[in-house]
């Protein structure tokens, strides 16, 4: 077996064996059991870095490893499993391993003393296994398998404290809502599977098929949107976003690992993997979903007071950004934002965990079980007590708000430039996409600084609680420091000039702009490129075709992503100044309201509440209530109606009357059977037999001499008869 393959497989086998070990033998080492896990994940991290090292030498089109093995064959159905590593998966492996490693480290303190400590580490191992599986998979069927596995581990970890009803409910909600998206994804997979002559789940085969065969554009669009529906569920996009804020019931390190950095990004990752088969219509749908999610979630985050809920909605909003970037064709920007977001959002969650941990300890000392440890209204002035947490959170907040020098600025800027260029290209209603992007950037900057000011600045809301606060131990602060370090732009762009084009660093060299996929449009459809199907052709083939045929058809070749990249370049400065402006505006607003307290937030509430905007946002736009009223209640109503029909009418009336008729017939037939058949016929035979027995009994006198006499007479008779013969 190839050495690389062994390394790649270790990404799966190390975490799964950690899972088995922690589950069955985790109790032996008590609290020290986490050392085993962190060593395993540490090995994974270093192996991931060994792949990552090669990213710098690889061009975006090359892949480092592609191994396929036949898994099962039944008749014409063939299923391969395989490992595929290119630059994108190598970077993703580092992100997953790094965040997983830091969360393992962080949890050793955060989860200290929990009665199910080893089970927690077991679930973390299971999650890391499944997430690595998604990253390494080379076929959509395999992605789907691991997709469900991450769903399972998410379910297990959200409901980790299942004694709390809210946690148990949240885990069920997360699982079921994801299920809705996954059904769509499964149908999409099957639709894609049956495309063309040869059927295959393999991603490269599928892309090859889509390129070469004539496929109905509606069919391909439907398949693409259905596949994307899986990402809608996993990445908490608009109609199915409701599970993610509730998922915050799980332990905070879990929120950092699964519900901020990696698993929710899996939807984006999967969409990037199937990017070449998405048609223009599907991309438009994706773009609008992302834009709507970004602005929608951001507007909810403004009014939330639970520190984790704010971060949860900001995650939904940022995921919306990534999806928007995919939709407008900014392939690079989407993945770039995925990686930078993973770093700073993991840090934000871990920092909030540090705050909550400290609050919990303080409340525990005060013997206070009423006060909510996660409510920002109970915090304030924590800056001096927890300096490391404060600075880590400040840096990452700057990053997410899009301030220069920080990673979020570069990646968000790339996305906004992409949306602008998309608008310049298409015009019309697509202006909504950049507007949504910029507005949510403004809102993001505002609510993130609101979070900082409410938590760390100002006067403590409660002196008693404040007195007992203290900085978290090193195992918790080290991940914060490291992750906040990675929130500086320099690690991604390799330049200290904040205004340089973000797409020039090593990252864009490694990922590319998706140049390898170009879109061929028939000449008569060239104007209607947005509405008609795109035929995707590998650029190399195009070049060779263009060279060999050198006819005018090369003019009709429309390099979609390259076009976007050029447009992005053109729109870059416009986007950058605009995004700087909105970030500054948002931060300024936040500083005025929450730092200097110049304006009372309540007056804002009154102004906005004229249109009930505040109430809408505070209550999350009543989406949960809407689902409750539109889906749950009618469903329950019809269930009750059908139950009534079934039980009260069908069961009670129809079935029971059949029972009653049967019963009366039985009574009649009992009479016939017992009184006549039994009493007369059967007993008659008995009586006859009895009578005969009584008669015959007399022959058995018990007097042997009479028997002998009988025998003698019989003998004489027989002798006489014999003699006659």
């Amino acid at each position, binding site marked *: 077996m190839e050495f690389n393959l062994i390394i790649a497989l270790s990404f799966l086998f190390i975490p799964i064996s950690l899972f088995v070990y922690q589950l069955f033998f985790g109790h032996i080492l008590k609290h020290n059991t986490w050392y085993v896990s962190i060593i395993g994940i540490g090995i994974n991290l270093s192996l991931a870095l060994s792949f990552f090292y090669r990213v710098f030498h690889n061009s975006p089109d090359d892949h480092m490893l592609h191994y396929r093995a036949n898994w099962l064959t039944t008749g014409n159905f063939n299923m391969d499993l395989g490992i595929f590593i290119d630059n994108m998966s190598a970077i993703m492996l580092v992100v997953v391993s790094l965040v997983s490693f830091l969360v393992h480290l962080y949890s050793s303190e955060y989860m200290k003393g929990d009665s199910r400590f080893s089970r927690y580490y077991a679930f973390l191992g299971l999650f890391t296994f499944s997430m690595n599986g998604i990253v390494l998979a080379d076929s959509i069927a395999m992605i789907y398998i691991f997709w469900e596995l991450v769903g399972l581990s998410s379910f297990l970890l959200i409901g980790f404290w299942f004694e709390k009803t809210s946690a148990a409910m949240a885990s069920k909600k997360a699982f079921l809502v994801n299920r809705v998206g996954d059904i769509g994804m499964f149908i999409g997979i099957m639709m894609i599977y049956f495309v063309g002559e040869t059927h295959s789940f393999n991603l490269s085969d599928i892309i090859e098929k889509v390129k070469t065969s004539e496929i109905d554009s509606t069919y391909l669009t439907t398949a693409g949107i259905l596949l994307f529906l899986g990402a809608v569920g996993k990445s908490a996009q608009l109609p199915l976003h409701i599970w993610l804020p509730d998922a915050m019931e799980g332990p905070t390190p879990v929120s950092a690992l699964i519900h901020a950095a990696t698993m929710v990004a899996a939807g984006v990752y999967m969409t990037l993997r199937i990017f070449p088969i998405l048609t223009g219509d599907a991309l438009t749908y994706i773009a609008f979903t992302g834009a709507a999610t970004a602005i929608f979630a951001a507007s909810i985050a403004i009014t939330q007071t639970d520190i984790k809920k704010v971060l949860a909605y900001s995650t939904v909003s940022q995921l919306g950004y990534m999806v928007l970037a995919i939709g407008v064709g900014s392939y690079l920007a989407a993945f770039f934002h995925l990686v930078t977001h993973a770093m700073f959002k993991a840090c934000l969650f871990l920092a909030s965990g540090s705050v909550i941990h400290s609050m919990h300890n303080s409340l525990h000392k005060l013997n206070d079980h009423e006060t909510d440890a996660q409510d920002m209204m109970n915090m304030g002035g924590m800056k001096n007590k927890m300096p490391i947490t404060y600075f880590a959170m400040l840096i990452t907040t700057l990053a997410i708000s899009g301030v220069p020098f920080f990673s979020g600025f570069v990646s968000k800027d790339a996305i906004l430039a992409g949306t602008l260029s998309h608008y310049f290209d298409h015009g019309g209603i697509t202006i909504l996409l950049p507007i949504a992007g910029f507005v949510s950037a403004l809102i993001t900057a505002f609510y993130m600084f609101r979070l900082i000011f409410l938590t760390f600045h100002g006067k403590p809301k409660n002196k008693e609680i404040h007195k007992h606060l203290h900085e978290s131990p090193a195992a918790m602060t080290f991940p914060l420091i490291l992750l906040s370090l990675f929130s500086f732009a320099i690690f991604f762009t390799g330049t200290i000039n904040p205004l340089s084009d973000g797409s020039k660093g090593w990252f864009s060299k490694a990922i590319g702009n998706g140049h390898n996929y170009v879109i061929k449009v028939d000449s008569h459809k060239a104007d209607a490129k947005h509405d008609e199907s795109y035929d995707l052709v590998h650029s190399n083939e195009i070049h060779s075709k263009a060279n060999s045929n050198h006819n005018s058809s090369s003019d009709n070749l429309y390099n979609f992503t390259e076009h976007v990249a050029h447009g992005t370049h053109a729109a870059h400065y416009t986007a950058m100044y605009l995004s700087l402006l909105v970030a500054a505006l948002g931060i300024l607003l936040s500083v005025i309201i929450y730092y200097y307290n110049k304006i009372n937030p309540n007056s804002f509430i009154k102004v906005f509440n004229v249109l009930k905007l505040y109430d809408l946002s505070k209550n999350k736009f009543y989406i949960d209530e809407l689902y409750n009223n539109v889906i749950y209640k009618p469903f329950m109503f019809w269930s009750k109606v059908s139950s009534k029909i079934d039980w009260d009418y069908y069961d009670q009336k129809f079935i029971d009357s059949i029972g009653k008729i049967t019963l009366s017939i039985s009574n009649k037939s009992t009479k016939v059977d017992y009184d006549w058949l039994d009493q007369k016929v059967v007993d008659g035979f008995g009586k006859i037999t009895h009578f005969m027995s009584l008669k015959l*009994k007399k022959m*058995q*006198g*018990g*007097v*042997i*001499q009479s028997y*002998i*006499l009988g025998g*003698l007479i019989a003998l004489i008779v027989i002798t006489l008869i014999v003699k006659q013969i």
Partner: protein
Amino acid sequence: MNNLQIYLLLSSLLFSLGIYAVISRKNAVAILMGIELMLNSANINFIAFNRFTSNLNNLDGHLFSMFVIVLAAAEAAVALAIIINLFKNLGTVNVDEAAELKG
């Protein structure tokens, strides 16, 4: 009159007397005596047939009757033991009284 017939007549007379004793007598000892009579009538038959139907050197009939006498002795011993036990248990040797198994 043939000599053999005289012996056969005697033996059949003895047998009839024996069977009559077995059937009619109620005393167990008398029944036993009847059985002895029947056995002895059979012995007479054996000897008579041996004497009249084969040469003088053939002693098969005698041998058989010897066996029968030994058998009769053994049988009488066992039967008497049974009768004594019967008397011990029931206080009588009347066979009609011994009807324990009668349903």
